[in-house]
């Protein structure tokens, strides 16, 4: 594998290989030495957390990073094409990690340069490293990715993260419970895909409605700005806030995940329960990104 652009490109076997390598890295079973390897972090849109996670991952495997920020149009203004910018950077670095608001930017980059490209998020399209770290968090807490009951709550209409996650889990016969306000429901094209694959799902309106059946509850933020009328937001937001009191009868293996940053959709009193998993999830992101970079750089034998 040369690039990581979209979950759509990955087979089940490849997904599981990423899991296996991340686990070995976490357990210290792999001696990775990316000495003299340089990752170019191209962030054409701000994302402090993702940048931090990648920079940490690269440093932990002995590599180094350079960062270029700005908008993808900034170099265009100087008269240089995006392709030329990429080709130039490819002369300095061994791998490009790219975040862009432009959809398909990472795919295009991978066609322009000879070095590996990692998509660190392209607009509303894909964020495969997030999807892989989410899967890694699920496999770590559940021991498997197969036959799980997964609740996904929040903004399911615009949430790129949940789309990738649902898409990735579809390979593993899951049962989904989608919990959202009616106008932020999972898009029909995703539901159609699930129907086609015979995957069971139901749509719910309250976060705790069937919480006792879940193995995982994946919570995402509902942005106030999505609502035309702020009053509508105030009316519904209570239905999508997870509170400690809702957790009295959940399954033993139940875990709450969140891509972070959170606003108030998970009440802080959940944090010190055994079910909170969002901070370890962020840590898993570093292991997964170490695995991704090492595999693409050919450092895993």
């Amino acid at each position, binding site marked *: 594998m040369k690039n990581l652009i979209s979950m759509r490109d990955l087979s089940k076997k490849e997904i599981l290989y990423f899991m296996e390598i991340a686990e070995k890295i976490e357990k210290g079973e792999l001696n990775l030495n990316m000495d003299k390897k340089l990752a170019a972090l191209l962030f054409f849109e701000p994302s402090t957390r993702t940048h931090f996670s990648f920079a940490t991952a690269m440093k932990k495997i002995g590599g180094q990073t350079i960062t270029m920020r700005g908008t993808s*149009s900034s170099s265009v203004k100087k008269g240089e*094409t*995006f392709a030329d910018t990429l080709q130039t950077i490819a002369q300095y670095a061994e791998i490009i990690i790219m975040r862009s608001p*432009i959809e398909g930017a990472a795919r295009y980059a991978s066609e322009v340069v000879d070095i590996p490209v990692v998509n660190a998020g392209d607009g509303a399209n894909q964020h495969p490293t997030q999807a892989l770290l989410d899967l890694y968090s699920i496999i770590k807490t559940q021991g498997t990715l197969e036959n799980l009951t997964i609740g996904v709550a929040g903004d399911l209409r615009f949430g790129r993260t949940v789309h990738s996650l649902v898409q990735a889990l579809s390979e593993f016969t899951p049962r989904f419970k989608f919990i959202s306000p009616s106008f932020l429901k999972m898009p029909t094209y995703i539901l159609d895909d699930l129907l086609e694959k015979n995957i069971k799902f139901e749509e719910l309106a309250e976060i705790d409605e069937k919480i006792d059946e879940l193995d995982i509850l994946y919570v995402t933020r509902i942005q106030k700005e999505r609502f035309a009328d702020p009053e509508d937001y105030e009316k519904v937001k209570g239905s999508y806030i997870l509170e400690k009191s809702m957790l009295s009868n959940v399954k033993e293996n139940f875990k709450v995940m969140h891509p972070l940053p959170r606003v108030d959709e998970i009440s802080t009193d959940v944090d010190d329960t055994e079910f909170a998993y969002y901070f370890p999830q962020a840590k898993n992101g570093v292991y997964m990104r170490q695995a991704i970079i090492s595999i693409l750089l050919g450092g895993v034998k």
Partner: protein
Amino acid sequence: MKQLKVDAIKKGTVIDHIPAGKGMQVADLINISGENIVMIGISLHSKKVGKKDIIKIENRELSQEEINSIALIAPSATITIIKDFDVIRKAKAEIPESIEGLILCPNPKCITNSEIIKTKFKVTDEKPLQVRCHYCEKKYLVEEVKIKI
């Protein structure tokens, strides 16, 4: 009833049974230039389809790729290649597996709309005809996309 005749051609391609009104679009699609003599019949009577458009191009044999691109606009079209007034080949426009450089992605955030890149689409479903952009991965009905001409 008197029927306006579109002359037979000695050598070239005839695209028949184009749904009425789509003829000009098909002509643009296959990029008819001034080099060849072209006859375009608009709203002709047809026993099969009621009304149809027809295009005859002299001295040009369309490639299968060009023929397939016609399927995007006029899936019912029939294509006949002619030499010495004889039919040497009849072809049906077939929906291709992938479509390159022919259609524009309707997604304003797609890289193909901010960089000069040849667009690439995969046909995901045939009925109704749907395509997925290779870059932004959005799926569209063929009626939703703009044909690049």
